[in-house]
């Protein structure tokens, strides 16, 4: 501490003036739009843009909107199918890639997993559309589930791979050393230790599937509209307070799951 009469305040060399304020602006930029959206969803006015008073009316209205309800059900069916599928595939891939030692198709498999992240989403979307259309594959929701499974794989894979890499391989050896055969080592050691990673992977895949818009927009047929696609069509018709309400619910839901994931991960790491 410097004595009070000195004019210049002590400052650590790594502490740059103004960066803190800048960071506050940065977070403001990230969160103010979300905040505004949620606020406006409580607007009693019929016109989305003009604030007249506080009301829950648009939320109650959601529950009587059949289209929104069927879109929500579609979204949930797709996410609850695609996320587990992606998680299972990702788990087996991670086991082979991380624990399989050095093998020839390792690089290739790594590349395959990250491919959906590399290819621009719009390209994946139209490519899948062409693929299904030209092969005449039309199983309604199933089409969307397949497309979602593909691009959810890398997201499910990341935490599972991280959990496997963080797991000391000596644990499995120690179990083998203590008279445990291969299946029982997997059952008693690998799987329990991997479960948090698998749950994390599932949660991320689930959020990604629920939130996906572009691929679903291109792939989904008439009967398989999901919530984001429905929101899009409402926005295209004009901003309505109902859109604000359903969007806010989706935002809160995603933030809730991701926060859950974060708290869950912190618990494991401690």
């Amino acid at each position, binding site marked *: 501490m410097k004595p009070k009469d000195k004019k210049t305040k002590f400052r650590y*060399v*790594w502490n*740059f003036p103004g*960066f803190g304020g*800048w*960071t506050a602006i*940065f*977070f403001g*930029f*990230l*969160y103010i*739009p*979300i905040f*505004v*959206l949620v606020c*406006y969803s409580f607007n009693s006015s019929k016109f*989305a*843009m003009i604030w007249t008073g506080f009301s829950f009316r648009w939320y109650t209205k959601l529950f009587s909107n059949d289209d929104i309800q069927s879109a929500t059900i579609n979204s949930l069916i797709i996410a609850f199918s695609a996320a587990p599928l992606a998680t299972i*595939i990702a788990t*087996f891939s991670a*086991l*082979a890639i991380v624990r*399989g030692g050095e*093998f020839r198709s390792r690089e290739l*498999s790594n590349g395959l*997993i990250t*491919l*959906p992240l*590399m*290819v*621009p989403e*719009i*390209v*994946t979307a*139209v*490519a*899948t559309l*062409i*693929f299904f259309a*030209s*092969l005449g594959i039309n199983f309604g929701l199933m089409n969307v589930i397949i*497309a979602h*499974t*593909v691009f959810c*794989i890398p997201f499910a894979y990341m935490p599972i791979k991280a959990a496997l890499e963080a797991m000391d391989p000596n644990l499995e050896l120690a179990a083998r050393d203590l008279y445990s055969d*291969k299946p029982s080592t997997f059952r008693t050691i690998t799987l329990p230790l991997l479960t948090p990673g698998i749950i994390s992977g599932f949660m*991320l895949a689930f959020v990604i599937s629920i*939130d996906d*818009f*572009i691929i679903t927009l291109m792939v989904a047929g008439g009967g398989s509209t999901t919530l984001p696609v429905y*929101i899009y069509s409402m*926005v295209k018709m004009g*901003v309505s307070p109902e*859109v*604000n309400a359903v969007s806010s619910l*989706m*935002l809160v839901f*995603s933030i809730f799951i*991701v*926060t859950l994931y974060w708290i869950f991960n912190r618990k494991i790491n401690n």
Partner: protein
Amino acid sequence: MNIQGENKTQNRILSLLPLWIVIGIFMIGPLLVMATVSLMESNVYGGVHFKFSLSGYQQILFDTNLFDEIEFNPAYIIIIARSFVLALAATFLSLLIGFPAAYYISRQSNRVKNILIFLVTIPFWTNLLIRTFAWIIILGKGGVIESSFNFLGLLDKESSLNLMYTNTAILIGLVYSYLPLMVLPIYASLEKMDVRLLEAATDLYSSRIELIRKIIFPLSMPGIIGGSILVFVPCLGAFIAPDLLGGGKKLLLGSLIQFQFSYARNWPFGAAMAMFLLALVILILIFNAKLNRRHRKYEAQR
């Protein structure tokens, strides 16, 4: 580690088979089919005519006029150029906004750091469509900005600032969409930096500006390059921001491709554009891989 008498190969193949099948059929398959479609003739009813043709690619540069003559058509080149300029601008702005924030976050205590980084990642996991749509409420006619201007008396009730459906609106949307992707890699490289380097540099008579220029910036270069690519690539193929905030009037590559399949029904042309975008992205990724390898070599030599 290889336990005596245990064969891993069989397990490995069985474990990877689902991956190979799913990605092989439903990711690589569609890309191959798309490549094929891009080399066919369009069919007026949508779909394709099974006949080899380069017309999809030709259309990017040329148009056939009423007299069946081929003439140069700059319309799509303009769209491509606009995509490039906007993506570059968005990348640069993200860097400008994100860098100080990434640095500030990296210098906090572990607890604060974790919470702030979590706050940076949250938007990434929320719906992009909804987050972009929120900007309509802010920028739109009678929206948050215009009504605050009204309130302050800077704008009379009848007129509008016309913020929506402009390149600026798209740019704001793009920056907003992908800003977290810029911050995370920069943060990752800054977090590894030893503060004592800054103390040493100051000790050796560096000013704060020189600290940024000579120490912090060079050391966070891998993060800056990584972040720039993570922002630039999706901006190039962005669909939501130009569609919602550009009102579909200012087409970008992404919205142009989508348009070909939703409305224009010119599949070969749309596929050709998608192939063009894919090729661009692959080039960028190869360039990045080369850079990374050079950097790793440099690290290894040290």
